[in-house]
């Protein structure tokens, strides 16, 4: 008899197209080649399998039940790609927002890890995202979710500074200290913010285990799942947070995931004491100072078994590329080159670092599923080659007469000068 808060994340990175050393300084097109755009390919495929059928289904349910309320968020680069590749996805999202039963949350425009490296960059990306949401949907988000639900006390302080009224993150046992995850918590920061923590058991039953034939509860029936939900008390809130692509992409349509979801909503609503709530409804009028504290010293996330940052920041390849990309911040911004700034930010998308993960465990399968590369080494090589070009672009704005030049470039340019 609990409250249930549903939240879905929509995101697609700009994957890097093949890029060789021979293009450094000559070609600044990193995300597609003249003849091929894998991002269009992926987005279109996922739109057909997941975005369009699931958004349509959500639209029907939302129109059918006034009580059916839920939330989503989407990265800015998801919206860009939707607009370019499959505008129908945007139309559906806009129509959903018009029902006023759907809440859209704030996040970083580039689905980046900026919150861990640069507060200035983090603020700017959240601001860019918020403006994009206003532009597309006419509402300003008030609740924040960070990339991959990455969260720490320090991040809570930054989010508080920006004026958001609550945060979504993961419930990690080592920080819960035995407290129930089905309640609101308070951030451990100067400005206390209410927190909603993901119920990983019930969320992952749908997101990961639904079609797993070796799972004891396979095949999962909607009645069973609603029964599990009903075991919670009326003052509890079950937060079901998951990737939107769970529906139709991670769990294919053939698994029955769409029917399952629809039946869960129908059946849950049949019990009149049950209630769907959006994050801002759940957190409104709460005095965070009266909530139990959720102290998170080291950053957590919703990824992998460890629920930490090790999917993106664990090995040397990831550490050094992250170091480099954020070291470039002041130089990139000093150029005032909008295209360069946009490209540099697209390289901040967390997925690029996820592809470089070499963790050896059950998580490895999940990583391989999402990666366009054959191995993490290839991801590193392509990313660093592109970075070399970004550096070349930056250096064109920097006057450094003492810099050592290429002997070959000096030599082979000479005839051209003579002609003039």
């Amino acid at each position, binding site marked *: 008899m609990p409250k249930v808060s549903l939240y879905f994340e929509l995101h697609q990175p700009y994957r890097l197209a093949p890029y060789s050393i*021979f293009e450094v300084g000559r070609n600044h097109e990193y995300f597609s080649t003249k003849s091929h755009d894998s991002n269009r390919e992926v987005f279109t495929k996922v739109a057909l399998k997941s975005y369009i059928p699931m958004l349509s289904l959500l639209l029907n349910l939302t129109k059918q039940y006034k009580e059916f309320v839920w939330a989503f968020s989407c990265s800015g680069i998801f919206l860009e790609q939707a607009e370019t590749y499959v505008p129908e996805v945007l139309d559906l999202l806009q129509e959903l927002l018009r029902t006023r039963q759907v809440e859209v949350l704030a996040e970083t425009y580039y689905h980046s890890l900026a919150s861990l490296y640069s507060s200035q960059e983090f603020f700017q990306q959240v601001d860019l995202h918020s403006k994009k949401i206003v532009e597309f949907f006419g509402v300003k988000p008030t609740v924040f979710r960070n990339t991959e639900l990455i969260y720490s006390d320090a991040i809570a302080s930054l989010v508080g500074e920006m004026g958001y009224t609550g945060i979504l993150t993961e419930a990690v046992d080592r920080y819960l200290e035995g407290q129930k995850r089905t309640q609101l918590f308070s951030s451990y920061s100067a400005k206390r913010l209410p927190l909603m923590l993901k119920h990983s058991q019930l969320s992952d039953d749908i997101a990961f285990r639904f079609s797993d034939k070796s799972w004891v509860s396979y095949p999962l029936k909607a009645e069973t799942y609603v029964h599990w939900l009903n075991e919670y008390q009326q003052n509890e809130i079950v937060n079901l947070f998951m990737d939107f692509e769970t529906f139709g992409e991670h769990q294919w349509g053939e698994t029955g995931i769409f029917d399952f979801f629809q039946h869960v909503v129908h059946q849950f609503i049949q019990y009149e004491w049950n209630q769907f709530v959006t994050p801002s409804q759940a957190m409104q009028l709460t005095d965070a100072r009266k909530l139990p504290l959720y102290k998170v010293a080291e950053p957590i996330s919703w990824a992998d078994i460890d629920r930490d940052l090790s999917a993106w920041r664990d*090995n040397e390849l990831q550490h050094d590329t992250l170091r480099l990309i954020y070291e470039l911040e002041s130089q990139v911004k000093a150029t005032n080159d909008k295209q360069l700034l946009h490209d540099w930010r697209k390289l901040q998308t967390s997925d690029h670092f996820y592809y470089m993960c070499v963790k050896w465990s059950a998580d490895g399968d999940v990583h391989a599923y999402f990666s366009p590369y054959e191995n993490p080494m290839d991801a590193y090589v392509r990313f660093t080659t592109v970075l070399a070009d970004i550096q070349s672009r930056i250096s064109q704005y920097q006057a450094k007469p003492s810099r050592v030049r290429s002997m070959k470039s000096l030599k082979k340019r000479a005839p051209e000068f003579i002609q003039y």
Partner: protein
Amino acid sequence: MGNNQILMLGWEYPPHNSGGLGVACEGLTQALADGGTEICFTLPYEHPVDIDHMHVLSCYSRFVTLPFGKNSPPFQAYSTQASGTSKINFDPKNVRSMSFSELEYKVNAYANSILDAVRQEHIASDVIHAHDWMTYPAAQYLKKKLHKPFVAHVHSTEFDRVPTGNGNPFITHVEAEGLHNADRVIAVSELTKSVLMDKYGVAEDKIDVVHNGIDVAPKIQTLQFAQDRPVIVFMGRLTMQKGAEYFLQLAKKVLTRIPNALFVVAGHGDQYSMLLLENAKQKLSSSVIFAGFLRDQQKDFLLDRADVFVMPSISEPFGLVALEAVQRETPVIISKTSGVKEVLPGAIVFDFWDTDLMAESIEKLLRDPTYYEQVVDQQLASLGEVSWKKSAEKIKEVYQRILNRRK
């Protein structure tokens, strides 16, 4: 002097080559054929491209899956799977009593296939000329069956490939056995000759040194990538032998003085992952770029664009790629333990581990255009002495000497 018929046993040939061996076989056979030598060249796979200057005999058994499949090159022959011995005590009988390894099986299968093919096609030959250890079992087999002399051509030994001395004992034994049973041995450098004498106990008067040659470089259009940065290039298999680790150390040192320098590592090999991790650990991720294995035009583009070429090999029997860099008017820095230095008196030579001096040298080259041009000119001058035609003439002398002795 009549024209000889040579049965040449190969292992790889362009475009399916993993490195220098295939290139050397191409240059050498072309020059020999130009001089009238008739060559029948065997390969352990189906060669997809027509070759005009010689008869190519594809020898592989229908019953054995060779290490590479029909159409791909046998790269594994040059991979380093270190385990074993530091000094070989050669006992010819011992080779046959060794445990039955996959490698042994494959090398022997190649030998059988060659004999079958030679018999089926009635290939006549005066001399059997075998390139590196993979072909030595076949050469000895044929020598016995055909009663023809066998020349072992050494492009590389297991002591070069695994400089710690912990090479594969099977391979070192095959090498030693082959060298022992060969009528003459050709080494690609004085450096290799000394390895053959010191490590394999081959008699000095059994060895002839024939340096590799080089073809005229194909004309290409210059590709001006990364033109605002000095580009320093490494090109070779990423194995311990080639010293790519020292290239990373060198990069680190040069970058403290020339922060915009761009280092390019071209090649693949068993050290690939290790080198990438080390590169990131040393915070070189956007300063040292890994370009993968390059061939043909891409290889030429890179050598042409390079401002400096570095070959820090721990043990390099020859090092053809250094000559190719010289052809592109790129100054080369090579290790003392490289055979190519014997034909390139104008090259800048250091110990492979001496990255301090190499870094100083690179800085001098990049800051002093007069010195740069001087080095390029010196190197180009030495190149005039090197050709496949010369190598072929020396090899014909080797053939003649054996045949005269036999009469």
